[in-house]
């Protein structure tokens, strides 16, 4: 727990597992963790912005998701990102939806 902000626990999502023998993670050291967090924000934001959502990281361990009208949601783990994002836009995020995939493809063009 962070003694200043009182945030409890840590992100336990499988993509950022606690470093231990045999487990693949990019949580091993501080530089690696920050690089991965920055990359994750880039990709997540590219996807989220197709529906005008924006994701920021706060204090290296908390995510803040906001929409164009300024409503925000705060969460600690990536496990909560998609449920929160889906709650903020109608229709949600379906990676098997053809229209949605077309929008993602447009980003890469």
């Amino acid at each position: 727990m962070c003694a200043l902000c009182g945030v409890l626990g840590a992100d336990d999502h499988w993509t950022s597992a606690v470093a231990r023998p045999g487990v693949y993670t990019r949580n091993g050291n501080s530089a690696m963790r920050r690089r991965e967090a920055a990359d994750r924000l880039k990709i997540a934001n590219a996807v989220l912005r197709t529906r005008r959502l924006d994701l920021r990281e706060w204090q290296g361990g908390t995510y803040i998701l906001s929409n164009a009208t300024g409503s925000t949601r705060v969460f600690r783990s990536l496990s909560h990102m998609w449920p929160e994002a889906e709650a903020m836009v109608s229709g949600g995020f379906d990676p098997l939806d053809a229209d949605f995939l077309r929008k993602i493809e447009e980003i890469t063009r």
Partner: protein
Amino acid sequence: MNGASPPRDGKIPVNLLTGFLGSGKTTLLRELLADPRLKQTAVLINEFGEVGLDHHLLERIDENVVLLNSGCVCCTVRGELVDALIDLDTRRAKGLIPAFDRVVIETTGLADPFPALSTLRAHPVLVNHFGLDKVVVTIDAVNGEAQLRDRLEAVRQLAGADVVAITKTDLCGADAVARLRRKLAAINPSAVTILREQAEAAHLLGGASVSPDIADAFVDADPSEGLDHHHEGESRHHHHLASGGSTVTSFSVIVEERLDWTAFGIWLTMLLNRHGDRIFRVKGILNVRGEERPIAIHGVQRLVHPPAHMKAWPDDADRRSKLVFIVEGLDPAVIKHSLRVFNDLSDRLLPRTETSSQLLGGIEGGDALAQTGG
């Protein structure tokens, strides 16, 4: 399959034992508990009556907990599994019941294993005290095929299995057992299938969540092996299994290009969030950009285990990523296309080629620090 190993992180390993109604869960459990290696096991069951433990009974601690003469603690689940586990852990800490080094949860015959697995991984207290071990599923050689055809619960249970024990093989012919085995392999190619008579303590031990064994198990059961036809980069090996009016499909996806870990993580998390109810299992070996060794991933519905960093490629000549999905009513071609779109997205957004060992050395860590610092 390795032998007994102490918990690596101080957590008590938990096995889940499930199987359709009347498929022989309790018989299997009774036999396994006779093994000295499982003598310090606590068992959570729904009803004492079902187990027929009377002649094993050593001491009745209270209405919910009994002590068996093998040393096992046996406890009924009244209400929530969470409460039963916390109660068991508290009694152990207080010395009210003998210390146990393993928990086996026997679920009801119609239970989907996912909620129990999910509870163990997501509960803020349980996650620090208990770790997931193998999921064992019993299937009856006489009725198993029909159950898999008619009941989605049976398919969900099978898809969640690390070990499948075929029971009642003495009541039907060898060809029926062989047919069932083929069906089991088609639905869950990554599970180890045994006959109940062969079941031993080792099948419960091993650590499904953190052990690189899971990757070996995947490779052993790679369904793409032995197929002489394949289309480059295409999904192949489809099995369609009618079940309760819906279509359960098992298929593998082969990816030629190397995968970006970050994009893959976001993609799979999004996919499972949206379609986790219909993705019974996903298991794979990945060739990740910047990594020499393969990474094994393993998930049941929305639950994904910590990824395993394997020691080496099983076949050094074939370093393509392979993913096995067991889904209900989802189109393999769309899943494959979606994965590709997200991987391409990372090419555009994260153009770089350095390896993780360079990252470890902090060569390019400076700008990342500047971006997120403060």
